[in-house]
Each structure stands twice: as C-alpha cells, then as structure tokens.
C-alpha cells in the first residue's frame, strides 16, 4: 500500500464522533477523521467553520478555554487523549502546535528554542542543549540566518523568521505530530513560500496537520484534505481528489469559489 492510498492503515491520530461545545454553542458536530503518520493533512473551509476549533481539540488546547467542552473520542497511537489518565503536559509535548500569529517569547533566539527541551529535561547539559537547539533550527531552515545572533531577542526577527522560530521551538521538543493553525496568514508571499517548503521537508518526520483558508496552499502542501463547513466534516480524502473530483456538491462549490 502506498502512502497516498485513501485508507490509512496505521493512523497517528483517530477522531471518532467528536463534538465541541463553547458554552451552549456547538462548534463541531460529530466529526470522525484519521490523521496519517507520514502525511500532511490539510483542514480547509470558510471562516468560522470549526477547522481551528477541531485542530485545538487534538492537543487539548481547548482546555484553556473555560467554557469549552469536548465529547467523543480522540486517540493518539490508540490512546484516548481525553481519558483521565492522560497527562495533558505530556500530550502537548507529543503533539506540538504552531499558531496563526508568530508568538516567540520575549527571550533570546537560543532560549526560545531551548525552552521546551529545558522544561522537559531533554538536554541535561549545556552541550546537549546546544546540539538540540542547532538541530531544531537547522530543521526549521533558520540556522544559517540566525547562527551568529542566537543571543538576540526572538521578537527582533522578521515575521517569517519568527514563524520558523516557532516551528523550530515546536520541533525542539521532538513531537510526533505538529499542528499548524493557519501558519502563513500573517506572512508575506515569500515568507509563506519558505514555510511551505519547510512543511515539505518535515513531511515523513512528523505527522503534520495544517489549517488553512488558502486552497492553493492546501493543494500544494498536503496529501489529504478535509473540508469543513458549519461545524461538520463535509468531505475527507486525497488532496488530488478533493480538488479535481469532489464528491460533494458543497465541496465543489467551495473550491470553485462559489462561497467562502
């Protein structure tokens, strides 16, 4: 079986019958989806369709919103992540996240990347940490640009560099899944191209889920695409199929620009 087959033999994450509520309002209705280990999965859909909400339930970031409630089952390697025995701190170390707006800490570039490994005790000595930081920055394609100024503040970088720093920060913890919530929406086209290139390079090393409202971007970077509309999962399949031969009328209307 090739990895581009629709069926996913060994999914990294499985969601089944997931509902998400914000107070009284239901943001996600009965969504079931499998995320492949070596694939880039794109969530597309118009604004307010729930794609970011669903993404945030995959690493339990919705827990930080007091009124949010998630029901249904979400598994990481077969383990229920909403089970009482699940340690949310460890979960988030395994499922990293990159946000819409670059959010480097007001610390040095080195400390931004070193923050995760330090708190998780991944680098016992300074020399180990140096190696981890360098490897993460190399993987994020930022090393050559910042290697001579690691002590400078992360907030002094350009927007695109900041976002790659945030990716490096997530990689440094050595996660299994990386969730990206519209990572390019605050960036210019050149910086966007660099991030997309980076996603290509990271594919296979991590399971990647990317939320985007840019359909061309979804077509360029992903192998699987899920189309969300009004809190429901309308269609999920191979990216090539979704964009060339959608089965649902709503998907077709959306990708041909009828609405959204």
């Amino acid at each position: 079986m090739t990895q581009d087959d629709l069926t996913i033999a060994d999914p990294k994450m499985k969601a089944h019958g997931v509902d998400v509520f914000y107070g009284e309002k239901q943001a996600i209705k009965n969504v079931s989806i499998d995320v492949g280990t070596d694939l880039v999965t794109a969530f597309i859909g118009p604004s307010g369709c729930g794609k970011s909400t669903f993404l945030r339930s995959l690493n339990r970031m919705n827990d930080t919103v007091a009124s949010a409630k998630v029901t249904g089952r979400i598994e990481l390697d077969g383990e229920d992540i909403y089970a009482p025995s699940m340690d949310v701190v460890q979960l988030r170390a395994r499922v990293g996240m990159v946000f819409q707006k670059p959010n480097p800490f007001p610390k040095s570039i080195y400390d931004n990347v070193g923050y995760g490994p330090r708190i998780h005790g991944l680098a016992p000595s300074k020399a180990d940490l140096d190696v981890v930081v360098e490897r993460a920055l190399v993987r994020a394609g930022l090393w050559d640009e910042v290697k001579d100024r690691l002590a400078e503040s992360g907030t002094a970088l350009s927007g695109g560099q900041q976002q790659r720093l945030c990716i490096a920060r997530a990689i440094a913890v050595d996660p299994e899944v990386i969730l990206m919530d519209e990572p390019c929406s605050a960036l210019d086209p050149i910086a966007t191209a660099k991030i997309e290139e980076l996603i290509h390079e990271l594919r296979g090393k991590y399971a990647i889920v990317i939320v985007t409202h840019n359909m061309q971007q979804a077509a360029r970077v992903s192998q699987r695409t899920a189309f969300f509309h009004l809190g429901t999962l309308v269609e999920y399949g191979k990216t090539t199929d979704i964009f060339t031969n959608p089965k649902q009328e709503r998907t077709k209307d959306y990708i041909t620009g009828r609405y959204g």
Partner: protein
Amino acid sequence: MTFNAAALLLLIAGLALIGWLAGRARSAMLAGRSGTKLHSRPQYHGWYVALWLFAPAALFLAIWSSVSPALVTNQVLATEAAQSLPAFGFERGAILSDARGVAEGKQPAVRLPAAAPLVKAYADAGEKYAWIGIAAMLALALAGGLYAFTRIKPDFRARTRVEKIVMLFLLLASLVAILTTFGIVLSLLFESIRFFRLVSPAELLFGTNWAPTSGAPQDDTFGGIPLFWGTVLIGAIIAMIVAIPIGMMTAVYLTQYAAPTVRKWVKPILEILAGVPTVVYGYFAALTVAPALRNFAVMLGIPNASTESALAAGIVMGVMIIPFVSSMADDSINAVPQSMRDGSLALGATPNETIRQVLIPAALPGVMGGILLAVSRAIGETMIVVMAAGLSANMTANPFASVTTVTAQIVKLLTGDQEFDSAKTLAAFALGLVLFIVTLLLNIVALRIVKKYREAYE
C-alpha cells in the same frame, strides 16, 4: 452698602440668562426675516451673548474683590483720624482690622478704643468703592453683552466661537493641578533656600548626626543620613520584602488560577484595602504589631529591642502597599498576550512553568515600574512611621531598633511651639524638598518603564 461678591455673581448670572434668551431670539428672528439659514443653531448665539456678558464681568469681579480692600485701606489711612495710629507693626494692623470689622457689620462694636474714630472712615470708603465696583462691573457686562448682541447675524459663526471658549475653559481646568504642583515646588524651594542659607546642603545630604536644636544652628546637627537610612530601611527594604512577594503571588493567583467568581470578589476587596486611611494602619502597627515584635525580639535575646521598631512600621507599610503592587502586577500580567501563554502551554509546559518562565519575565518591566511607584509611595508615607517607627535618629541595620524617617521628622519639626524662621523649622521644608525630588524621580522613571513596556505589546 458693602460689596457682596456672591450676590453680584448671581446678578450677572441672571443678566447672562437674559442675554442668552435675547441672543437666541434675535438670531431666530433675523433668520426668519431674511429667509436665510442660520450658520449656527439659535442657542449657540444665545451662549455667545451670555458668555460675553458673563465672563468679562466675572473676571472683573474676581480682580476687584482682591484689589478693593487695599484701596479702601489706603483711603482710610489718608483721613485725619488715621494720623494718630501707631506707625507700623502688629498693633496698627489690629486696630485697622477691628475698625473694618465694625464697618462691615461683622462685629457689633469695637474692641480697641483706638479703632472707634476709624469706623466711619471705613464705612464711607467701603461704600464708595463698592459702588465704583458695581458700576464698573455692570458697565462691563452690558458692554460685553451689547457687543455680542450686535454681532449676531444669520451667517455669524457663533458655534465655532462658543466651542473655542469652552475649550479654553477646559484647558484652564486642566492647568489647575499642574499650576498647583508648580506652586508647591516654589513654596518648598523658597523655604528650603532660607534653610540652606543657615545650613549647607552638603551637611543635610551627607551629615551623619541628626540632633536639631532650637535657636541658631549648631555645627553638625542637621545631618540627614540617619533619616534617609531610616526611610530606605522601612520604605524600600522591609516594606518591599513584604509587599513584592505577596503582591506578586496575589496577582499570579488572580490572573492565572482564580475562578472568575473568586476574582470578582477578591479584587474589589483588595481595592478597598487600598482605601483604608493610613492612620488606621498606624494604630494597627503601633498597638498590635510593634508590641508583639518587641516580645518576639526579647525572646530571641536581641539587644535594644524597642516598642517602636523599623520592622513593625515596615511590615505594616508593606501590607498597605500589597494592593498597589498586586494591581500593577495584575495589569502587567494581563497585558502579556494570550498567544504567549498558549505558545508555552502548547510546548507541554505546565501552568506553573508558563507563569514563572514566560509570563513573569514578559511582565517584568511593567512589574518593575509598579514596584518603583510603590517605593515612592512608601517613602512618602507618614502616619505609620510617625506612630510606629519612632523619632530617634539611629543609624542601625537592626530592624528591631527604633529608627526615624524623613516624613516622621518633618512632622516632629513642624508640630509644637517653634519660631517659624529658626533653622529647626525650616529644616522640615528642606527635607520635604529632598523627599519631593526623590519621589518625583522615582515616578518619572517608573512611568517611563511602564509606558515603554505597554508599547512593546501594542
């Protein structure tokens, strides 16, 4: 007939009302007659007339009220009855004010016999100047009113003029506080200069012996260092050791852990704590904390423990400052964007690690600014130290000993019977000036830090 400013003010206010009605009516009438549209609505024309009627007359009234008593006195002094007055000094003033009191009907009869012949002169002069003042004021009001009234035309821009005048009033209102501060600085400065003519600034700032005595200043008795040290020990060291950790922890709890209902109750209670009069804290320090600390110190075998101690004053002052520190820290932590917190949590950091390693460092500049403001409040605080810290100028690092502060000494120097121009009394102003400059600098630095930090996240 006396000059009653309040009644006259009411009179011109009444005239202004008439002017307002007249101006409004005239503008409407003119517009109706010529069939053109008014530039400004009729009431603006009314306001324009009313302001022109009222403002110059009121200004004149204010000036006249302060000038006319001097004019009256001059005229009285020119009369024959005044020639027999003592030349200068206290007695002359007393006789004059006695006569004036009777003339203005504030007292039934003269107390000093020498004042009797002057009463009539005062009454005459008072009446004359009252009439002059009233006539001039009315003339001014009418002239202003007529001037404005004749300018009313349909295309007259009354609204823009009225708005300009209103803006001027607002500007004046905002200048009151600034000018008052300026006046305070000047008065402090003048009295301090008088002090520094007697004692050199270097002695006050760097001398180590504080034992001011009445009469001519003696060498080496106005050394401020013990006071400055006491102020720093209580306000900047002990109070901050109490206030900073507790205030920070309060802020962290309230911003990060507290349920919304808890926060809804605890925050207002803290704010009430900030409104407790400092004299109440002073009682608490002097009657409850200080004796308990003394007993504790005696138990530990600490020498020269006193019921008045730096520690008692400092601890209670720290408690007083807690709401201040916690609310500044609360604001700063809340100003750190949510995305920062999310970024840290998404890396698998615990809430505790997020607070210690991301939120507090990011909020630190704002917190530092808040702490500096708190220090400047603490060193200017008076009641607690007067009641609990004592008045003996000791240079000691022993927190159980009695020390004194700049503010406590100012109180001591200014209370009691003193001649007002002795070095001892004037020293209070010089100390006040030093305190003012230090707190001013602290506030400037603190506000700059806070402002710069706010900009960083906008």
